[in-house]
């Protein structure tokens, strides 16, 4: 692994109306690193992900993906350039089958996804790839099911399978454990670990501290739209400012 920044944020600021949503957020994430983003609700974590993925344009600052300035690029161009993300609420295509969901991601990666001429078939390259990805998250047996019929934890896994299929360089996971039954957390943690193992750069917003601490290399703490600290998990947890920000105040 080289240590050049796969994702760089330079002085990101965002104002909506009079409200200051993000302020002076600067952050370098080296290639292959896994970074946890924590902070109380309303601190701007999801907004930061929206800025990185292009859903929201920042009012100031730059976003660099693998050295290239993508601040003005559209969502799909950033995605095509190797940026993948999930959403806080699971967002599969409910009326499509599990396989079709993942196959879309595989096709998007391989190109020709919007071809009018080609009809997807069982056994073609994209379908095979989709099945492989489903197997990686242990869901190949659900390939034929309609996505809306899955349990919540399964949906999360399908989203990860879609990420694997799209093979992005940088991945943003927005609260992957939200709403997942506690029994399913360890399995899902393993799936996320697998996602990172390929040398991918991963950013993860998560409230499950044991998940964050068990997975990430560094933790970024956000509060009131600003970055309070970026450090190793141990150092961040020992930081009194972080304490008071996150829990109100140390008890």
């Amino acid at each position, binding site marked *: 692994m080289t240590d050049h920044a796969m994702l760089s944020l330079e002085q990101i600021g965002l104002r909506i109306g009079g409200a200051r949503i993000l302020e002076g957020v600067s952050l370098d994430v080296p290639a292959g690193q896994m970074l946890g983003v924590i902070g109380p609700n309303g601190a701007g974590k999801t907004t930061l992900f929206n800025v990185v993925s292009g859903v929201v344009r920042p009012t100031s600052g730059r976003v660099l993906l693998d050295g290239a300035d993508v601040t003005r690029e559209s969502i799909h161009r950033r995605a095509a350039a190797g940026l993948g993300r999930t959403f806080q609420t699971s967002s599969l295509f409910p009326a499509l089958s599990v396989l079709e969901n993942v196959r879309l991601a595989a096709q998007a990666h391989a190109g020709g996804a919007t071809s009018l001429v080609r009809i997807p078939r069982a056994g073609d390259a994209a379908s095979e790839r989709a099945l492989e990805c489903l197997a990686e998250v242990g869901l190949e047996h659900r390939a034929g099911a309609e996505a809306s019929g899955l349990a919540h934890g399964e949906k999360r896994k399908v989203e990860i399978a879609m990420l694997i299929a799209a093979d992005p360089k940088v991945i943003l996971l927005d609260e992957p454990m939200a709403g*997942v039954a506690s029994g399913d957390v360890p399995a899902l943690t393993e799936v996320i670990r697998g996602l990172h193992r390929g040398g991918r750069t991963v950013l993860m917003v998560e409230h499950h501290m044991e998940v964050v601490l068990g997975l990430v290399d560094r933790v970024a703490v956000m509060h*009131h739209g600003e970055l309070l600290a970026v450090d190793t998990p141990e150092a961040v947890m020992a930081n009194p400012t*972080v*304490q008071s920000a996150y829990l109100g105040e140390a*008890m």
Partner: protein
Amino acid sequence: MSEPASEPILVVDALSGRIAGQQVIEDIAFEVPATGVTALLGRNGVGKTSTIKSILGLIERTGDVRLAGERIDALPTHRIVQRGVGYVPEDREVFGQLTVAENLRLAERDAAPRRELVERLFPDLVARRAQRAGTLSGGQQQMVSLARALVNENRLLLVDEPTKGLAPRIVDEVAVALAEAAQTVPILLVEQNLRVVRRLAERVVVLSGGRVVFTGTAVEFLDDEELIHRHLGVHDASEAA
């Protein structure tokens, strides 16, 4: 703290809620005593807000919900509120195009609304009566949102993350207002700032995986690192401190 002295004001049983056909909470059961603050805790995405919205009928729900003994689970939202339920939503939801005064006037249900109380608690809002609520800061908007609930005589307040994204000084002001309100009306409070919880709440109800996993006094819960760790997952932080 004290055990509920009389009949609980709110009894929730077998409550399930759905958003766009998707089950978000399942089989929730708990009680809110007729006095004091009951905190509803749990990790993000666990269904706290959905529980509040289900009680109010803002999302599709089934189950048995009783307000002072009367079934309210089949009533439309406005009828539930008219029975004396004040609501402070997550993210304030003030009417940004309306002035502060109009926001408050809209909320007045009682023949004799408690304007003095509101003016005493939030003097800042008096000065900004004619200002459009959308131009207020987050903290001021939260004041408007709280004031909309406090201006009426309620039998129960449902308050959803009132300190979310607020600066510490504003958090204090909100806590003061809630403490004053709690003198006269029971409150069901969703709050992630455990310091605020400790300051206000007597009892806690903890959700996990869409179900209630703990019910007890606030002290019992907040002093038990193991419980906090298990249910909120923020234990490591306070232990390291």
